[in-house]
């Protein structure tokens, strides 16, 4: 299952399958844009002295797509291609959880917009992580 919204904005999706970073990157390329910045969030092993071995992501899929679309639209209106895809399901170490890509005419904008988007995704898109750590299970956002 991949839920996608691709009308107004370039490409946003909630994906149940592993992210194809190359394919997502290719969607960003265009002759008018010389700078492409991408952020990929992967499952990290250590957070201070807590060891993680897996993360399960769930989403309120339809609402998450709406929120991603709003975010992407805002940035695309300023002159950019935007791709945002978030994984759901069970992820192992180094698996890709999220891809945020921005192509813009100039690199300063691409960096600024990409960082803005990943921060916004983490703050306002209804997606949750359940972290399987060595000592116990932790829900993201609650500690």
């Amino acid at each position: 299952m991949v839920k996608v919204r691709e009308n107004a904005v370039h490409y946003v999706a909630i994906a149940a399958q592993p992210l194809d970073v190359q394919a997502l990157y290719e969607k960003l390329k265009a002759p008018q844009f010389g700078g492409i910045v991408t952020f990929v969030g992967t499952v990290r092993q250590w957070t201070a002295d807590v060891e993680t071995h897996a993360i399960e992501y769930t989403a309120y899929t339809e609402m998450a797509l709406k929120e991603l679309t709003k975010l992407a639209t805002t940035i695309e209106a300023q002159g950019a291609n935007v791709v945002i895809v978030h994984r759901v399901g069970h992820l192992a170490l180094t698996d890709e959880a999220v891809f945020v890509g921005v192509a813009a005419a100039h690199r300063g904008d691409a960096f600024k917009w990409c960082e803005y988007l990943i921060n916004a995704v983490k703050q306002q898109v209804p997606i949750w992580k359940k972290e399987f750590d060595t000592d116990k299970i932790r829900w993201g956002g609650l500690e």
Partner: protein
Amino acid sequence: MYTVKLFAILAEQVGQAEVQLQLPTPITAGAVKAAMQAAFPQTSSVLADCLVAVNQTFIDQEEFAPSEVTELALIPPVSGG
């Protein structure tokens, strides 16, 4: 009765992905959370940090007539990325 979608830790605490709640009119975020707390007191501490979404949009202080509400959800603190 209104169907309210639950997610993540909230769904686990209740053991269901949605619940039926009796809500007063107009419908507000506070009313949804109060009804949830009364019906499922075990969700109390998480509920304090939850947001409410009406028709897949976060609401704050807005009030809604029953006819305006097609989908209700309780949103625990998000943690994507």
